[in-house]
């Protein structure tokens, strides 16, 4: 059963509780930041910043807030390109990076359409949102969702959240937000993060029509079956080699005794 996080941007007041709670739970250090003309800080996700809040100011003088973190795509580029199999999709729909398996090649960093994974300069491992897998597997909600003061972040069964999002968008449209829409229903075959927006996704800093390159897709096609074929082939080769060697040996022994 797939689980997801619902981000209701209309309810968000940009307190950044999610940003701090994520750092505290996941034991991520805080780096020094500086003002670069936008309240979005740090300006991008980092190997030790898995979650940040994007502030966008519209021409009408309104603020748009969007919590931004790993989207946990159903068809995730990072899972498909990782040559070490270090990124996997768990049964509850979390795209989970295994730091012990990561070789720091950076393929996921190149291919992610959301620019979520980053390589740590100190440990040379990829760092990104783990969906708080150790919390959710114990029946707790992710740290960012737990701390959210006004229910802008919710965690639950994906289909139920999608239904809830549709009702919310309907009610927002009735309240006069004609542009209200859902982001994440079908993008990348369904994201693990569903956004309720009142403007086009681009206005919130979310990529419209995210996709990953053909090379990642070919890699995915080739790696899984060929990798297995290769390992099975190697094993059977070893068995055959052993049998032949043993057969030869028995024959030679026979020759000697006779």
């Amino acid at each position, binding site marked *: 059963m797939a689980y997801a996080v619902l981000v209701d941007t209309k309810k968000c007041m940009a307190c950044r*509780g999610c940003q*701090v709670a994520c750092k505290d739970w996941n034991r991520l250090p805080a780096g020094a930041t500086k003002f670069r003309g936008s309240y979005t800080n740090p300006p991008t996700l980092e190997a030790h910043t898995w979650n940040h809040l994007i502030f966008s100011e519209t021409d009408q003088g309104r603020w748009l807030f969007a919590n931004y973190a790993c989207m946990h795509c159903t068809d995730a580029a990072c899972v498909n390109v990782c040559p070490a199999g270090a990124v996997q999709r768990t049964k509850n729909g979390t795209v989970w990076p295994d730091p012990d398996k990561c070789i720091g090649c950076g393929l996921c960093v190149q291919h992610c359409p959301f620019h979520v994974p980053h390589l740590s300069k100190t440990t040379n491992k990829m760092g990104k949102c783990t969906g708080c897998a150790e919390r959710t597997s114990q029946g707790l909600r992710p740290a960012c969702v737990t701390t959210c003061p006004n229910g802008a972040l919710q965690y639950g069964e994906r289909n139920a959240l999608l239904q809830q999002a549709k009702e919310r968008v309907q009610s927002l449209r009735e309240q006069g937000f004609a542009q209200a829409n859902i982001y994440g229903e079908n993008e990348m075959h369904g994201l693990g993060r569903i956004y309720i927006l009142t403007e086009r996704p681009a206005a919130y800093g979310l990529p419209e029509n995210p996709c990953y390159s053909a090379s990642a897709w070919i890699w995915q096609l080739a790696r899984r079956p060929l990798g297995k074929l290769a390992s099975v082939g190697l094993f059977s080769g070893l068995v055959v080699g052993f049998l032949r060697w043993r057969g030869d040996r028995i024959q030679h022994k026979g020759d000697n005794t006779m």
Partner: protein
Amino acid sequence: MKVTRREFFKLTGVAALAAVVVGCDWENDPVFSHRLEDAKEVTTICPYCSCGCGAICYVVGGKLVSVSGDPDHPINEGALCSKGASLLNLNTVYNLRTHDPELNPNRLDKVLYRAPYSQTWVEKNWRWAMDRIAKKVKETRDESFERQADGITVNRTKAIAHLGSAALDNEENYLLAKLMRSLGIVNMDHHARL
């Protein structure tokens, strides 16, 4: 069962093909352990703004490991904003290079005293600070104490005020109010003037 060489190759080939087509599920979900399993929960109140949100401190082996919102608290019902969510960092910060927890080096753990008209802070010990506060309170109270006003017994001082806090818990508020009243202080206020 007797297997000839030819049959063995056939079987191996079929098994390999089947494994590829069906795709054996070698990758299982990782097993996660929960950091707060053996933690002792201690409730506290967020020290920052006047809302007074409740928080739970998780203590393992006498060390603070995590702080989160208290779901049973009527004010915040489990939520914490960025200031409240950073409560753990008053005590522990994570090293930027190694990610290891360490004591917050910016935390004040000594009494600092700046004399009137001075520009520098001087380190003092607690004994000195407590004595000085007590002396000043006694002095001010003795100077300004009123026994009677308009023929009514008041026994009060208007020269000292006390500013309480929404970030204190019930017991602390009770003790502070008791102390202030016993000194005759009537100007008691609270920073949560919402």
